[in-house]
């Protein structure tokens, strides 16, 4: 076992600030939606909008960081065989005491399922939620952009559906991140300190 610098400082900052923003937006979003009522509609909108702009800013930096460092390659999907191996492990192998089919190192820090999940998060759920969110925010100005055919219903359905998917992602991610390490919470610690113990 050796300690490896797995997550760069920016990456950790990105992860936790993104986590805080997304959780805040889930709470305020479902408050706006009327599913919960922790605060007023107006307060929820104000916080939600502020978080949205912050998250968009953060995304710009994240894209820049991923492109310039080449870290975007971490999200290239693996071969179907490797993905299937991960699925088989989670479905059966893990209960039979079999070892993890993926070996983690600095240049391959995501297992094939993670690659797929994070790629989906960043190019499907994320954009669906923030594009529909921007349409929501600027709905009154859509006419000036020639988009007046777009109804608020479509915007609302997309935004709400994507929000549910985000919540589903969060639950699965929390489960896996908290419990899949050899020691409970080791991945969380790694995401805070940046260092992770890996097999040599």
């Amino acid at each position: 076992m050796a300690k490896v610098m797995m997550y760069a400082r920016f990456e950790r900052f990105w992860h936790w600030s993104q986590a805080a923003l997304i959780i805040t937006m889930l709470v305020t979003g479902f408050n706006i939606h009327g599913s919960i009522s922790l605060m007023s509609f107006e307060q929820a909108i104000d916080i939600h909008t502020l978080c949205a702009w912050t998250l968009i800013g953060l995304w710009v930096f994240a894209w820049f960081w991923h492109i310039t460092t080449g870290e975007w390659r971490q999200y290239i999907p693996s071969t179907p065989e490797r993905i299937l191996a991960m699925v088989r492990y989670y479905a059966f192998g893990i209960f039979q005491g079999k070892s993890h089919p993926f070996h983690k190192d600095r240049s391959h820090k995501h297992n094939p399922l993670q690659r797929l999940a994070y790629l989906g998060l960043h190019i499907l759920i994320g954009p669906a939620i923030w594009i529909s969110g921007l349409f929501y925010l600027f709905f009154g100005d859509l006419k000036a952009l020639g988009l007046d055919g777009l109804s608020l219903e479509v915007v609302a359905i997309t935004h709400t559906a994507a929000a549910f998917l985000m919540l589903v992602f969060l639950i699965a991610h929390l489960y896996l991140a908290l419990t899949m390490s050899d020691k409970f919470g080791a991945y969380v610690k790694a995401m805070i300190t940046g260092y992770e113990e890996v097999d040599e």
Partner: protein
Amino acid sequence: MRRFSIVCWGVALVTLTSWLPAGLWAATGDGKSTADHSKFEQLQQTFQSGPEVTAACLECHTEAASQLHKTSHWTWAFENPVTGQTLGKKNVINNFCVATATNWPRCTSCHIGYGWKDETFDLTSEKNVDCLVCHDTTTTYKKFPVGAGHPNYEPKEWPPKSGKIRQPPDLTKIAQSVGKPSRDTCGACHFYGGGGNGVKHGHLDSSMHKPTRETDVHMDAAGLNFTCQTCHTTGGNEISGSRYVTKASDNRGVVIPGQADQNRASCESCHSNTPHAEAANPKLNQHTDKIACVTCHVPEFARGGRKTKMWWDWSSAGKKDEQGKPLLINDEDGYPIYDFKKGDFKWEANVVPTYRWFDGDVRYTLLSDTIDDTAVVPINSVKGSYADPNSRIWPFKVMRGRQPYDKQQKILAVPHLFGKDEDAYWKSFDWGKAVTAGLAARGYEFSGDLGFVETEYYWPVTHMVAPKENTLGCDDCHSRNGRLAGVEGFYMPGRDRFEWIDMIGWLLVVGTFGGVSLHGLARIFTARKGG
């Protein structure tokens, strides 16, 4: 670019005017006159009657009467250019005292003329124009309630059998101190329409003579102190801003000198379509394409401490008390809730308006229209929809009641209420006679089959604009059962949701949570077994 310059103008205007002392507003509103009417030769006489005063006025103001003759203030008739309907007090039917026909002397105490006591009134007569009712500055000129537009020229008792004597107004003094109309002169009729204080509008009542800032931020007597014509701009005795053709949306931008249309009878004509400051929530300015200003800025009407009439049931009129005397019942605040002459009333203060899509198109149910007596009959109905770019969500006072109708012909009845003749309802309390006479005056024959039908009447709420700290907030509408719960045709965040999306969504969430929980439990179980 144009929009930007309009915004600049708006900001400049608001910034400039907000620094003006209130007194200056009042001064510009009143307009210093260059004439002292008490020095006019024509007015150095003892006037015996209103028309005598008018004759003196017309010696200098040569066009005043002929100009007035063209206005609906005079004609009580109005051709609606949008709907083609012939409206005006002469023609419409309402659910207050129903109609003017045969009740002239009582109704025309609010006509800007003298002597409209029956159908023969000469609408071309110049001397019968009442200049003083609008131009009195002494607040002492008052038309006698049953004088067909005349004040009383001799001391007279009013109300009847009250023992109170009304002194005649000093016409000479009043004529010598005429000036521009004020809240008091306009209010003399418009605050008391429907036969009493605050009866009709609900946003115009006696509290508007000297309103507080809370009641009306613009007319605030201690603040901006607007007069009616500050917004209802005038010219040649024509006054802008009519309820018959409401401007539901105004896209002209801020009205500035040089523009052809100087009508300021809309919020937007001073405040523009983007009235909220940069510092305010940017979403507010995005609401103006769908929400009328007054929807948020007049949170309730009848806010001046006066109640407004909300219900008038004619069907219960005519009752007597145990002693056989005509029945009169007042509520604890002194408002009549039963009057043997008129039936049951309901009054309310601080009323939350009813909200509807509105494009300015109002259609009245006229005497010539067949009604559906199985439902509530609309006295008027307002048009508008989400899809229409000229519609806005507007606040309304909805006046409801029950009133007589002809069951055979299915038309609203015109009752002859006022008069000393046996046909008058307030004389003999016989609906058959009253409706026969009323309908006959409008050229209809009563079938003899009388019924009472429930009606509703939509009144757009435009006055009693609240200070900004008292306007509606987001949550008033953006909530499950908010103020716009009944306004349809669009998706509103916080109010609406697609139940199927929520169902699938929560199933996925719960499913995922259950799935990972089971997965975790199974791992613990198999690990123990294995380990």
